């Protein structure tokens, strides 16, 4: 569904991704893990059209995304939940969600959008409760759900998630992962970027490890979980962070 070949790109003259390749098949959850600054977010930005310059090949459903602007890519069915949530604080929850349906409302699909709203509310009941409140007063976890809900409103066939669980309490992390699993069962495809390598690989079908702009490992998620290298570099650190850093 998504094929990336030899992707190079960065900011200005600084190259962040030095020829990265990755593929995601329909219905899969693919985890992309790696340390801070490895270039994970940059890769998602390139796919969603937010990175102004890159070379290489990115195909979605066989169609090249090179040169396409974000709205066109959204229209093709690629949704992005950006890092740091990026919700619009003064706007109400429902307005944030409706914003996700911008392109569909432009086509006049009001009925479909209202149905989609109901589906999002069913997935995240807390958003229904708070639909009239400004998004800025939601808790971190609720904002994350709102960001996911907003991306779902674009009715994507593939969702790019950038660290959806960072900074959330363990219970909420579990909940977000459950929702991803459920959406996968409803045939949504995921490219999931996570700091929480353990959780992400446990959920994913396949995984990739990105290190300073290069893919260093890839394979079935279960095998990566067992991989000594990965354990040492990421899982161990996660564990330490969990014990020492987050208390």
């Amino acid at each position, binding site marked *: 569904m998504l094929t990336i070949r030899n992707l190079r790109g960065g900011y200005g003259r600084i190259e962040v991704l030095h020829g990265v390749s990755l593929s995601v098949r329909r219905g899969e959850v693919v985890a992309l893990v790696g340390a801070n600054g490895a270039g994970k977010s940059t890769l998602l930005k390139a796919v969603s059209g*937010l990175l102004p310059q890159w070379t290489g090949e990115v195909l979605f459903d066989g169609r090249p995304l090179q040169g396409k602007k*974000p709205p066109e890519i*959204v229209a093709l069915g690629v949704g992005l939940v950006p890092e740091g949530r990026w919700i*619009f604080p003064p*706007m109400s929850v429902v307005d944030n969600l409706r914003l996700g349906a*911008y392109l569909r409302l432009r086509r006049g699909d009001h009925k479909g959008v209202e149905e989609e709203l109901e589906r999002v509310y069913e997935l995240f009941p807390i958003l229904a409760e708070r639909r009239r409140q400004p998004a800025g007063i939601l808790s971190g976890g609720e904002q994350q759900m709102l960001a996911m809900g*907003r991306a779902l409103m*674009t009715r994507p066939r593939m969702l790019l998630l950038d660290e959806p669980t960072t900074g959330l309490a363990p219970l909420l992390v579990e909940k977000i992962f459950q929702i991803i699993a459920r959406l996968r069962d409803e045939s949504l495809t995921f490219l999931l970027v996570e700091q929480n390598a353990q959780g992400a690989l446990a959920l994913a079908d396949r995984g990739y490890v990105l290190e300073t702009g290069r893919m260093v490992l890839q394979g079935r998620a279960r095998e990566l979980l067992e991989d000594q290298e990965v354990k040492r570099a990421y899982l161990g650190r996660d564990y330490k962070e969990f014990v020492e850093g987050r208390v």
Partner: protein
Amino acid sequence: MTGKRRLWATTAFAGAIAVASMAVSNAYHQQLLTVIGIHTLLALGLNMLMGYAGQISLGHAAFYGLGAYGTGILTTHYGWSPWAAFPLVLVAAGAVAYVIGRPTLKLSGYYLAMGTLGLGIIGHVIFREWDSMTGGASGMVGIPPLQVGGTVLSLGRSGMILVWVVVLMAFFFCDRLVDSRIGRALRALGDSQGAAAACGVDTGRLKAVIFSFSAVLTALAGFLYAHLVGFISPSSFDFLMSIRMVTMVVIGGMASIYGSLFGASVITLLPEWLHVFSDYEMMVYGLVLMLVMIFLPQGLTRGVLDALEGVKSES
């Protein structure tokens, strides 16, 4: 605003206009209210750009002048009817804005501010120097008044009613716009362009469109001004005017439609009440802009309301 509240607000506003149009019979007051109405249109137009899309224009006086001089030239030199000139000047303002906005707004930051600053200066130079068309520094006289049916709408009661009916319609329209799909996208733009783009909003185009819309509203104010006053001169469309507009928006509150009315009233009435003010106008605006931005970044209207809420909840 929800549909019901919008209806109430509009009805109340229409009622106030009806009452005022009957009650105010002093010519000076009528004139003052007319000017406040025109300034409200200016503030509203700029607020759609500044308050919602988060972009600043330092040359909106050029669009104000384009509306006024455009119709002035077409009606006095070419004998057009004002109603024929009307769509043309509005379209011209929108087109000029789009052409300037499209490239400058693609870049982030304050490129539009620089671009419009230049535009404002060029506009003012043209109004002042193109003697054969604009009458140069001494201005243009004899711009015909508007007529509806057999009624002449001139400075006085009829002109005042005309301006306020237009303000009412503009309020209603902008309020709906802000609440629409486009309005949500606009508010999102002001917040984060990346996130708006991730929702499928073509940010560069939308900003150019709203800039264009704001220019059209501003030209509309210029059109009304020219036909009501009958005389225009370049000093009404200079840099100080552009700054006056920015000050009105800042005082009234960014992204506040009814705040525009307040900002316009303050900026119109202050020089009337304080005559010494006119010598230091620029300085006072500078000071006001600084103080409001530091202490009440939401604008006076919102700021005072918030302060009152605070007092209420404390007691």
